[in-house]
């Protein structure tokens, strides 16, 4: 079981270290963690995916609150939420039919080819982890040279913001 937490934190030096150190110290199992800017200068947003079968999610939130720089923590697992992951995948494609087969798969997954070389293609895909896993599975037989994934970002649906005024 996975749970998704969204944390708003002050954009100050060392905040990511503080959060990472907390997870290590309390022996929490974290699947992914992403950080980025928000609509508010001075506030960063973290999306934290926790393996809730091994880690008490409520305790994660309560301990995050103990960090002085953490402003707000919300468990969005049970809320209607848009979850997205982004991947860049470099696949072997040395001409011939393989290249067009890959292009077709990419279309099916609504992904895009963002770089073309003589013997490879770079694919960009956005979506839920399931969707990306699906594309990775069908691309694997062609030979994945390199891959990077951003980890999950999340935002609750509807008008209400998770904002910090």
């Amino acid at each position, binding site marked *: 079981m996975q749970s998704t937490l969204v944390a708003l*934190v*002050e954009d100050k*030096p*060392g905040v990511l*270290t*503080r959060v990472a*150190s*907390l997870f290590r*110290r309390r022996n929490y199992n974290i699947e992914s963690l992403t950080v980025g800017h928000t609509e508010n200068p001075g506030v960063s947003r973290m999306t934290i995916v926790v393996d809730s079968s091994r880690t008490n999610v*409520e*305790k994660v939130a*309560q*301990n995050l*609150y*103990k*960090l*002085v*720089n*953490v*402003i*707000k923590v919300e468990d969005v697992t049970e809320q209607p939420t848009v979850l997205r992951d982004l991947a860049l995948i470099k696949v072997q494609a040395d001409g011939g039919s393989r290249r067009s087969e890959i292009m077709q798969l990419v279309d099916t997954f609504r992904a895009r080819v963002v770089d073309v070389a003589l013997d490879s293609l770079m694919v960009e895909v956005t979506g839920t982890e399931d969707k990306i896993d699906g594309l990775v599975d069908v691309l694997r037989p062609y030979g994945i040279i390199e891959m990077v994934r951003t980890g999950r970002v999340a935002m609750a649906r509807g008008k209400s913001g998770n904002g*910090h005024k």
Partner: protein
Amino acid sequence: MKKTGAEIVWAMLEHEGVEVAFGIPGGTIMHTYHPRRHYGVHHVLVRHEQCAAHAADGYARASGKVGVAIATSGPGATNLVTGIATAMMDSSPIVCITGQVSTPVIGTDAFQEVDITGITLPITKHNYLVADVEELAEVIHEAFYIARSGRPGPVLIDIPKDVQQKSTEFEYPDDDVDLPGYHPVGKGDADLVAKAAQLINQAERPVILAGQGVMMSGAMDLLRAFAEKTDTPVAFTLLGKGGFPESHPLALSLMGMHGEVFTNRAIQQADLLLGFGMRFDDRVTGRLDAYAPFAQKIHVDMDAAELNKVVKADVAIHGDLRQVLEQLLPLTLPNEHAMWLERIAEWRAQSHKRDIINRPENGHLVAAHFINEIWEATEGQAVVVTDVGQHQMWAAQYYPTSYPRQFITSGGQGTMGFGLPAAIGAQIARPDKEVWLIAGDGGFQMTMHDLATIVQERLPIRIAISNNHYLGMVRQWQEFFYDKNYEATRLLNPDFVKLAEAYGIPAWRAKNRRQAREAIAAARACNGPALIDFEIANTGDEANVYPMVPAGAALHEMIERPTYVATDYKSLTSHQVEQVPVMDTVLA
């Protein structure tokens, strides 16, 4: 007005009400020391930075104010670490100021450079590396606010040398702090408080578990009013000692691993436990699945992360204990639990019979004796500071307290070496009080170099060494659980009397109860510090702390105090101390 970073440090310490700072100067902090004499903060030069942190901690615990420690970069800063971890575990408000190498050379492995904010990140409530002198005043103001508010704790401020040297336009920051993510809790949720009141009014066998939070929130009077109104007995944690007068008819005793049998029995038989400002530490609960099986649990704590962490509470209230008790009191009905209290009184009488203090005189000195003698001589009014180990448990058992912040001890971290420097801080915080340090011979030797600080500051601390020539608590565990294999626990000690005299501290040795009484009287008659080396029994059941819940056992599965009849004293020699050589006889 323009001020240098160094001057801002002292101006801000003054502004925060700091009277005293403990520290040692060095390369990167000298610049801050330079203008100190123009400001009203007394500096206590200690002999090791660990003692600066412990002394600041002892000062904080005795006074309720924030303690301050200062050290240079590198080894000066790392020497603070044990003291910071100790303060963190026991929620003690201290601010540590460290020098750092100049900002242009940070990260170059410069001389005496260490990443102290990185090192102390998991053991501080918060820490700062000040990159710009413009931030310094605000950072110091925030640091003090964070250290003392909410669940208190240590805060470290690392100040590079060039930041100390640079000047800026200085004004005192506003009282308000800009911390969008930091909001200490106040009242408890009204519905939960009402639910708690309902459980309290229905309870037949309630027990209050009073922790340090009682004193931190200033809830002593309210706790007493609550206990009296609801007729509920009060057990306390090691750090909760002092939150409820132990002479009160509703007072039980220390709970947990070395708590009295009657108290642990009451907890195990209770139908309602009220955890007030405590955290169900493993030393308090014993084996968890057998802990207080009949009891519903109400847990009030200011730190939400403590609720349902160890023990699942039926009602968990996140709030400041004082405010929650204010909410709770009007909702509770006056009650009487005569039958329950009578049952506890019967258990108490059984425990009392086994108490070593009531054994007939047999010529041996045990720690319970001399601690009891100190208690009697000081009429129970001294501030008692302990180190960590057997003597610490004996002090908790045999020096009943009557007022808050009277018993100062390292609980969560169990830091040996804490006692002597913490006593320095406590005596400075409470010049009006007689301060007794009770330390074991092992822990005393971890920080005894700061005897020099005691003399230098003319502090009238009375030092009682509970000397059994062993790392006694480890020895006890070896006896019980490691086949009596006393590996690495026997101590070759210096002559503590001569040692004290080398520092100009008058000292005595006591080997029996009469000598103990006389030495205590002589030590109390001194104007300045005094030391007594109590040579206590170190074999047989007299050498061990009872009662004891072995690790992994349930709270009711205690090893009770042996009855004195069970020991065949005739077979023992007249003096029970196993002879262990003193250092100068070894060298001779």
